[in-house]
């Protein structure tokens, strides 16, 4: 039972950065913009948040700093992709490389000492319930915040006028522009929101998940988040489920290494990447489902005629 609880809670925790980053990217892609630079934005978020903690700032401020770091990075992408109409693939790649460079540069003096991780909260009374308590009510606040963001984003995209406008822009920016919506401005907001979320994901990694600084500590989680959006066929609930699936994979893999299963640790470490490929292949078979929720204008530059 203890092992089960450990795997369950570990899954939820490992999924948290993926939920932040993938939900953020979902909003960006729903507006018709493809930002491949999640890995770079996450690393910026991780570096900024860690920096703030070392500088002695309180934890909420550090996490905010991480989010802002991600947003600042996303603004670079926004200017290139939305104002300068560059190829979005290339601009996203540039951001991924740039973010990894800047974060490594900022982190050169961080040292290798761990910091005090974000504290877990034991929710009064609820956390004392046997089994359910330790499973659901003993996480750090960011875990709950990720779930809250899932509800907020689902509600925004499908239950508000703003969400409808955003999705319209993703389907047909020409139509939205003709009706009079400021396509470029709304896309900027979406890109910035994606940056904030990726920054939060990075901050979570460096101040809560593994509270020490390692260069390139995201280790592909940004790219996996990108794959999650495709896997989810652009539906928020499936993003959440996909993140838990991958979180579970990560934890099983770590548990396997801890138990000393007689396979090379590298093989276990490769499992999440392998799983990403397999899942992508399976989902790509269903062209109809992909086409149904795919934002039709994704990665196509748009410039309103004046």
């Amino acid at each position: 039972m203890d092992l089960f609880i450990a795997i369950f809670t570990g899954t939820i925790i490992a999924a948290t950065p993926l939920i932040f980053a993938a939900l953020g990217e979902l909003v960006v892609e729903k507006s018709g913009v493809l930002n491949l630079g999640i890995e770079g934005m996450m690393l910026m978020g991780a570096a900024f948040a860690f920096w703030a903690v070392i500088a002695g700032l309180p934890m909420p401020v550090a996490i905010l700093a991480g989010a802002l770091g991600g947003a600042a990075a996303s603004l670079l992408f926004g200017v290139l992709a939305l104002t300068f109409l560059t190829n979005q693939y290339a601009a996203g790649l540039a951001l991924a490389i740039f973010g990894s460079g800047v974060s490594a540069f900022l982190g050169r003096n961080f040292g290798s000492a761990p910091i005090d991780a974000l504290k877990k909260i034991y929710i009064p009374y609820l956390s004392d319930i046997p089994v359910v308590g330790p499973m659901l009510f003993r996480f750090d606040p960011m875990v709950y915040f990720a779930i809250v963001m899932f509800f907020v984003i689902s509600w925004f995209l499908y239950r508000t006028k703003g969400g409808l406008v955003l999705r319209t822009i993703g389907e047909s920016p020409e139509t939205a522009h003709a009706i009079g919506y400021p396509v470029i401005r709304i896309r900027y907001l979406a890109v910035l929101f994606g940056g904030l979320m990726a920054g939060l994901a990075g901050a979570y990694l460096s101040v809560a998940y593994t509270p020490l600084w390692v260069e390139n500590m995201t280790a592909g989680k940004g790219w996996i988040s990108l794959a999650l959006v495709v896997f989810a066929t652009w539906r928020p609930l499936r993003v959440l489920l996909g993140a838990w699936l991958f979180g579970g994979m990560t934890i099983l893999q770590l548990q396997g290494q801890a138990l000393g299963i007689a396979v090379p640790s590298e093989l276990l470490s490769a499992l999440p990447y392998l799983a990403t490929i397999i899942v992508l292949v399976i989902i790509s078979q269903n062209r109809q489902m992909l086409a149904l929720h795919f934002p039709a204008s994704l990665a196509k530059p748009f410039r309103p005629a004046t």
Partner: protein
Amino acid sequence: MAAPVIATGLTLLVGSLLFAVLGYDPLATLQAFFIAPLNSLNGLSEWLLKASPLILIACGLAVGFRANVWNIGAEGQLIIGAIAACGVGLFYPDPDSILLLPLMFFAGAIAGMAWAAIPAFLRARMNTNEILVTLMLTYIATLLLSWLVHGPWRDPAGFNYPQTALLSAAAMFEPFDYAYRLNASVFITVVAVFLMWLFTDRSFLGYKMSVSGAAPLAARYAGFRESAAVWTGLLAGGAAAGIAGMAEVSGPLGQLSPQISPGYGFAAIIVAFIGRLNAFGIVLGGLLMSLLFLGGEAVQMNLGLSAALTRIFQGILLFFLLAADFFIFYRLRRIPEHA
């Protein structure tokens, strides 16, 4: 050709601002970064040595990029090429055979192509996004390399260091001069540049691929098969990266260790773009990018600055390059009233 020059200039400008902010004399640092490394014969040898894989890989990648086939996993294909070549070098029965080097060459090329064939098959037959697959395969290739050098291929006489035994002399490219590391593998790159030019500018398949990239609907209407472009693009990149991996093993490295590339596979993507996806531009782009690597090492050693600066400069350069395109493709023009 104006955009790359403007982008380079602006990168230098931002670079000097960055140095100034960090409290270094900008001019002296720029000199240390971009000029001092080339002040000696050894520096020039290192410059070409690092430019060679970058140019080689960028040539292969550009073939795909022209057709909108996004192979961003050249780093993984390089690693697999290096593993295959080193495997041949270590286990071929006659370590002094003159066949060894050619065999390693083909092993590297075929292994790189095989690794790239996975995303090609998945994209052409299974409709799976090649960006994500090539990237995931890069992480897997890194882990495979790590497993080999920590486990089965570890040199028994190597004091437990995670590395393979050194390759025999017959498995290595001859340096031009034993004082420097530059070796005959640069000729492979020269040939690759020529082949790339021949393919893109003088072949029908190359033309078809450019059409697929620039106007997919027109290409489909003309009956050009998308899957042919996918296969050609990915296999070209895989072969180039695999050969580059082989040339690293048979050149400066001489053995495998967990970290065999300073990110050539990723930097080559930028080189391909700086070079405008054409052969001669790529040569210039590769020389520039190689200088960024050298400069990063030089300021790390001489001024104690972080080598991460190299990646920052790479990112900035690509940002400016992409932005500069805007001003060239969308030139400002005064429109006469009531035209």
